[in-house]
């Protein structure tokens, strides 16, 4: 493990990096938490989907940040994938909401409790 540290130290300190990796990670963590709170508290199914968007967004920030600071493009590729999948999820999710709405006349997640034990 020490060898890796040695190697990292030998890299050039930074390249026009204004704030550093941790700042992005902190920002992403905060956005993620906000999204999670939204998912947990929203009554409306569409609102829950919006919360999920926020969380995925935070993930994308992380991926992009790791890509930038790791000097590897894989993170960007993954972020692209995530965005595409998220949009697909958004489409299907909203279609589901509409279907549920037709069937139950509500999109309040609290009242969608058919699974109640």
């Amino acid at each position: 493990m020490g060898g890796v540290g040695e190697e990292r130290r030998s890299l050039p300190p930074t390249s026009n990096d204004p704030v550093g990796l941790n700042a992005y990670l902190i920002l992403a963590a905060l956005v993620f938490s906000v999204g999670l709170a939204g998912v947990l508290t929203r009554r409306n199914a569409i609102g829950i989907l919006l919360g999920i968007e926020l969380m995925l967004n935070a993930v994308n920030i992380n991926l992009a940040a790791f890509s930038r600071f790791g000097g590897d493009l894989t993170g960007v590729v993954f972020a692209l994938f995530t965005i595409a999948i998220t949009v697909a999820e958004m489409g299907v999710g909203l279609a589901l909401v509409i279907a549920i709405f037709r069937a139950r006349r509500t999109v309040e997640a609290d009242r969608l409790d058919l699974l109640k034990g």
Partner: protein
Amino acid sequence: MAAQDLRDALVVLALPFAAFLLLGVVRPLRRRGRLAGIVSIVAVAAALVVAVRLELFGAGSDAVGLWPWLPGDGGPMASVGAVVDVLSRKMLVLVTLVSLLVQIYSLGYLHEESAPGLGRYFAYHALFAFSMLGLVLSPSFLQMFIFWELVGLCSYLLIGYYYDRPSAARAAVKAFWITRLGDLGFVAGIVMLWAATGTFDFAPLFAMAKEGTIPFEGFGLVMFLIYLGAVGKSAQFPLHVWLPDAMEGPTPVSALIHAATMVTAGVFMVTRAYPLFVAAPDVLWLIGTVGAFTALLAATMACVENDIKRVLAYSTVSQLSFMMAAIGSGVPRAGFLHLLTHGLFKALLFLGAGAVIHAVGTNDIFRMGRLFRALPGTGTVFLVGTLALAGIPPLPGFFSKEAILTGVWESGRTGVFAVLALTAFLTAFYMFRVMFVAFFGRAHAPYEHAHDAPPSMAVPLWVLAGLTVLAGLRLAMGGGEEHAPPWLLALSLALAVAGFVLAWAAYQAGVVSASALASTFPLSLVDSLARRRYFLDALYAGLYRGVMLGFSRLIGWIDRYLVDGLLNFLSACTLRGGDLLRGIQSGRAQDYLYGVAFGLLALVVWAQLWLRRP
């Protein structure tokens, strides 16, 4: 010649068994009813012929055939075979004779039965004949026990022949269980005897008794246990209660099994093993005492019974006890003689009673009356049986009973002698009571359709009556070998006559009022006790209800409240726990997401605390 005897004995044994196999396996034959009866009758008749030839023209010497059965270290552990001696030869004739006559009689008596029922009946009869013959031929305790149980099974099956009648089914079970109680002792005794001596066979055991190896330590207990088997089978006090109830079976069955043959198995066994019982004087004393006591007890019950078959049943108990008392007093020959003669005339009496019941359709003697006019034939043979049982010379009952009394007197057991003498008096009394009430006296109902028995029933009756008279005459001729004191002969006769006179006075002439007699002290006490069967049936019922059912209820309570309670408690815990946990399952997706969030939190905290470590 001895080998020839042995072969004959085995043929006698095999014939009824072949009949039973044929009836048991070939279903169409069994379901033909009368044909099945004829098969069985032919087999038993052939067996009778062979048995008579063996008795009259056999070598006369004892023969024993033994074949190894259970292998063991150093010779067979148990063997099977046959023993031909004076006891078994006479028993073979008696069993086959009574079996044959009863089966012929049954053809007439049960003519209204359905064909399959009749086939079943005769199959049981053939099995019974085989079992009883096997029992008397047994050369060892083990083989005897096997056949002993087989006759018990036949008894159960035949008592319960009318299995759709609840009282018959109950009586069958009662007989089975009570005799099983005695058999428990029997089998325990046999095993203990084997453990001590290493053999089941009679011959080596008798040799040991002769040379003094027996009695060993604890021999008295062993013989007592073996005697218990006889107590159950031969209806000795206190296990005699099953025999009167066994009268629920068809009357021919009562005649064959519960009078002439099976119930004498106990007496026969004690006679057979007499050399061993001699070595245990305490047990012998007990046999005599219990015998005398049961004889008197059963006689008093016979005096107050109104059911003609039950009178005969109590009489059977009483006479069996006579035999037991004789053996217990050291005169097994007299007991065995009484066994033979009793077998003849008690079968006659039962079959006669069956003919009466057949004719009038009731068992109650007080609903009969003046039957002698309607049924002269039946009345005559019944009279012969009554005279024989009451002990009027020259009929055989007189001689065998007198032989017993002589033997008991000479053995010096005065108490037993006195009780037996009193019993002899009572025997005459209750038999003539039946005779006077049922056959003479006043008619209680018109019997237009009462008629004498059909030939198939009448012939066995007349044959038995004739044989009874013949046996009596033969005993009268050869009576010289008994050297009874003259006063004893006179006493026997006097007792019989006194019984007759009292019965005549009370029930025929009306000189003495029977009810007044019964209400004078101390007879009133005996009367009321006897009418209640000395509370023995009630005692057993009470024991059953109190102890057995109480125990069952206790077990039931434990099962219901402790075992089930524990399980119910566990299941209630599970249910309650499930109800509690069920609250978690709200069915709302976001509540589950809280779980995910907490999981994430825990994961991060765990990673913080543990992955940080160097």
